[in-house]
């Protein structure tokens, strides 16, 4: 069981959704993340860079059909941090529910 820890790097809406997608797969392509989040290339790049700087996301460029494509995956630290953040959100949501 992952102890609940709030992570401000992950909590921003765009980065939360990126982590939600990446936690369910091995790796996802830049274009899929951009289309899923409905954001521009530059906004997604910014989010990915912040997650990469935190050590949560690994970016890799691989050639496909003569073009270089960027693939993103969660690092082990990213998986742990995301699981801890979700646990904390669940705990906080339960507390909020009790207060209502």
């Amino acid at each position, binding site marked *: 069981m992952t102890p609940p820890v709030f992570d401000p790097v992950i909590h921003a809406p765009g980065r*939360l959704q990126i982590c*939600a*997608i990446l936690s*369910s797969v091995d*790796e*996802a392509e830049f274009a*899929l993340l951009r289309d899923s*989040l409905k954001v521009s290339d530059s906004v997604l790049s910014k989010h990915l860079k912040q997650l990469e700087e935190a050590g949560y996301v690994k970016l890799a460029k691989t050639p*496909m059909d003569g073009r270089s494509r960027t693939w993103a995956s969660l690092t082990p630290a990213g998986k742990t941090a995301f699981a801890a953040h979700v646990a904390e*959100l669940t705990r906080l949501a339960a507390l909020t529910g009790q207060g209502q």
Partner: protein
Amino acid sequence: MSQAPNPRDALASIQTARDDLGHRMSHPLGYDLICAVFWALLVVGAGLQTPWSYYVLFVGFAGLGACVRWWKKRHGLSVSNTTRGTRGVATIMVIALVLLMAVSLWSKSTDMAWIPLATGGLAYLVAVICGRLWLRAFRRDLKASV
């Protein structure tokens, strides 16, 4: 810049992202029907005499590699049994295929040349069924993940 969401909204956005991912993950039945041919070839190849077994196994592995590349290109995703349900389906499929390969291999020591064809046919069915079950399990696990 958007505001940080409250816990309930944040959990809902995680679920929305995963639901959306599940909807994007659909491949036609034809994909499973074609990939199953290559799984079946691995089982058939195990029961053939050399050099035919080498040729058939080579085509099987090459075909499966092409299937994986096609899937990755179509979906922009790489998934290898990251959820409990998909791990379960994959484990059942691997056990069934290994058993069928073992039967194919055993048939080499007999004069029953039809056995590899029979095990190959069964492997085809197993692969098609498990292919569809895998997709259902992945979507179900995504829905139940938060």
